[in-house]
């Protein structure tokens, strides 16, 4: 396995286990490399569109899709753990990535009413709701945080 893949897997395994997004220090300690090496790997993973870093902070991850490094309106509860997702797609994506039943809580972007979705046995239970993609695919990465 190459170094960048080790870094990527370490990030995902850590956030899956703890619900907390690791920093470059955590990753360096986790795989036994220098912080600088971990941050250089972060940059290469950004170029591959697998990570989004916090602005002006090479050590902190804002997004390792589907996981969010900050609190968002999209909560995904799996067993006793609560994860935060970047968007509607990623809220379902966390359940898909972790291959587990999940209780998802979000809100209608229009009226703010709480929306709850359940993933059971590999599929969502019927529930009212739709998803609106405001940005066309060709422009998603022009401002991925907004997207």
């Amino acid at each position: 396995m190459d170094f960048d893949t080790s870094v990527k897997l370490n990030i995902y395994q850590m956030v899956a286990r703890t619900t907390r997004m690791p920093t470059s220090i955590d990753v360096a300690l986790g795989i036994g490399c220098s912080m600088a090496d971990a941050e250089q790997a972060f940059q290469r993973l950004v170029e591959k569109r697998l990570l989004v870093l916090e602005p002006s902070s090479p050590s902190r991850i804002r997004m390792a899709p589907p996981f969010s490094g900050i609190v968002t309106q999209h909560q995904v509860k799996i067993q006793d753990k609560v994860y935060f997702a970047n968007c509607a797609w990623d809220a379902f994506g966390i359940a898909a990535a972790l291959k587990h039943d999940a209780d998802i809580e979000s809100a209608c972007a229009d009226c703010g009413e709480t929306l709850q979705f359940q993933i059971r046995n590999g599929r969502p239970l019927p529930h009212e709701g739709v998803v609106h993609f405001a940005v066309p695919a060709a422009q998603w990465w022009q401002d991925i945080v907004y997207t």
Partner: protein
Amino acid sequence: MLFFRSEEHVDHWCQANGVSKRPLVSLDQLWQLAVIWYGNRLTVESRRPGPQEMVTIFSQIGLEGPFWDPKSDQWATAP
């Protein structure tokens, strides 16, 4: 990529925020997309799909047209 209670709420939100209404995605389509896109994210083999793969994935679940094409230049000059 936001959740809404219904299409009526999408219409209201688009009007209130000056956003053009785009194609809607059902919860079942969203789940299929999540499984295809993120199902192996915690594995060594995981990678982001390339542009043509994206078109194929979207098409498989009924999301077709230039809106879903990451190579489309129809949107490149849109305001």
